[in-house]
């Protein structure tokens, strides 16, 4: 009987305070919408950064005059690093391969025809398990005699560092933003519900005088908060779905060559919707439950 009674009380209170319930719902709607738009964007950027990080690799150039033994020694060295888990994989690129690759990258490959000989050194292209491991690889192969004295080791250090710091910045600022948004949402909802309770504090006072326990008074308010939170979250999920279908999906289709190629992953919409609904309900329940405490001290 009790749950039904409390639910009925919550519905009654929403009906008799329609304007405030609406205000609370819209607040949740906005907060959840921003959260719902931000979470997938954040995850998308994160995943894109991760993809870029994977691409940072080290080129170990081999001197044209290197002996086969020396090249083998260098290869063994890198193999050792691979076994240690520092290097994910590495491939040998011969002088001809390097020339062919360059030819492909140039708009006008005819320039290469004018070269007297192939100037591109052979190399080991080393992919790292983690970009932070670059130094370890560089130190390990630095002293190898097979190393090309002019080219040495090719590593986009600056680019990598910058990418890493950007990635970290995105990570931290993203988390901070989510935190701020959540706190703002709780405060907004709390404030709206405080208004609603303030409007009814006389009623709460009467309930206490009749001998209602705090939870007897609190439950309907908490349920009311959950209802407002769920409805707000549901509306914002609908809105997000509309935005996704109308804007994001079309954008992905248009730019499929660039975006899908990256194989960036974000969060599934259903998962997102479930998270947002739960967040909405929790926001509503917390907002009203916490706010009510002050008014129960009659």
């Amino acid at each position, binding site marked *: 009987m009790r749950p039904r009674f409390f639910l009925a009380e919550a519905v009654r209170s929403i009906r008799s305070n329609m304007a405030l319930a609406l205000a609370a719902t819209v607040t949740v709607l906005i907060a959840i919408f921003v959260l719902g738009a931000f979470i997938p964007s954040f995850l998308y950027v994160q995943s894109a950064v991760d993809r870029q990080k994977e691409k940072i690799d080290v080129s170990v150039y081999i001197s044209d005059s290197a002996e086969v033994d020396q090249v083998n020694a260098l290869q063994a060295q890198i193999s050792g690093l691979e076994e240690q888990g520092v290097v994910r994989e590495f491939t040998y690129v011969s002088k001809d391969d390097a020339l062919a690759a360059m030819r492909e990258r140039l708009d006008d490959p005819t320039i290469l025809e004018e070269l007297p000989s192939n100037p591109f050194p052979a190399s080991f292209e080393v992919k790292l398990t983690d970009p932070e491991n670059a130094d370890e690889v560089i130190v390990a192969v630095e002293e190898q005699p097979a190393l090309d004295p002019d080219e040495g080791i090719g590593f986009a250090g600056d680019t990598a560092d910058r990418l890493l710091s950007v990635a970290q910045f995105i990570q931290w600022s993203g988390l901070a933003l989510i935190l701020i948004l959540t706190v703002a949402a709780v405060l907004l909802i709390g404030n709206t519900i405080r208004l609603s309770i303030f409007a009814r504090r006389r*009623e709460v006072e009467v309930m206490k*005088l009749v001998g209602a326990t705090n939870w007897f008074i609190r439950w309907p308010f908490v349920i009311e908060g959950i209802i407002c939170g769920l409805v707000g979250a549901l509306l914002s999920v609908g809105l997000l779905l509309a935005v996704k279908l109308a804007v994001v999906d079309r954008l992905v289709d248009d730019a499929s060559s660039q975006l899908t190629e990256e194989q960036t992953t974000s969060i599934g919409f259903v998962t997102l919707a479930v998270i947002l609904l739960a967040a909405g309900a929790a926001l509503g329940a917390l907002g009203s439950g916490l706010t009510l405490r002050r008014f129960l001290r009659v």
Partner: protein
Amino acid sequence: MSTDAPPESTTQRRADTGSARRARDSQNGQSKRESRQNQLRPGDGPMVVFDDVTKQYGSDAVAIRDLSLSIESGEFVFLVGPSGSGKSTFIKLLIKEVSPSKGGLWVGGRDLNRMRRSKVPYLRRAIGCVFQDYKLLTSRTVFENVAYALQVTGESPSSIRRKVPEMLSLVGLSEKGSRYPGELSGGEQQRVSIARAFVNQPRLLIADEPTGNLDPETSIGIMQLLYRINRTGTTVIMATHDRELVDKMQMRVIELGDGVLVRDARNARYGRPQRAVPTGDEAGSAEDAS
């Protein structure tokens, strides 16, 4: 001095309500513990005991000073005195809206000083309260207002559907159950408030200026209702300014002035002053002066 014992008929009726209550409890399947919590059982002791109670707000505002008195089960007591004399604090102490700064206070055998905060709702269910401003839930109908006092105690919907109409007919509002408080006259609203206060069959009913906002004729109706409730064995404490009403009723009168007990006169129930401590006239003129 021996007339404190309630008349035979009152005792009889109290026994009746007791058995009715037991029947109701078993019907609802309420735990015995809960039903006991919802009733005051002073045993043979008095319903209310003030033992040298002082209530002070802040550092210098003394509302009640060194008050000692006791009220027996089944008594009807008028609490009189000018505004600011401590009547409201007296009542707030009884329902533990405020706690004594000093001294002991027992209601229905319960030591309010040792009562935990979480038990206060149970105390209030056991005490019916009627206020000058009715304190009705304005967004609920008359029926729902009375029902709320039962819902609070966890009564089943079926017993609520049975009891509320009984109570509404007792206060003469059978036809107005679906009205909202705003649509009723002051006297009618006060009747709703009384119905709500009495629907849990409390052993103690407190009325704070119940006729304060009503015209004399309506006041008499309310007074009669409270008297009838008292006749069922319920202790009634009524704070009032209404001299005429008090004189007419010839009940025990406790008078406060500046937080101090000025007069505690017990009058016989059938119109004979038992013993005039100060005479009624003197007290009256003292009241007029203030």
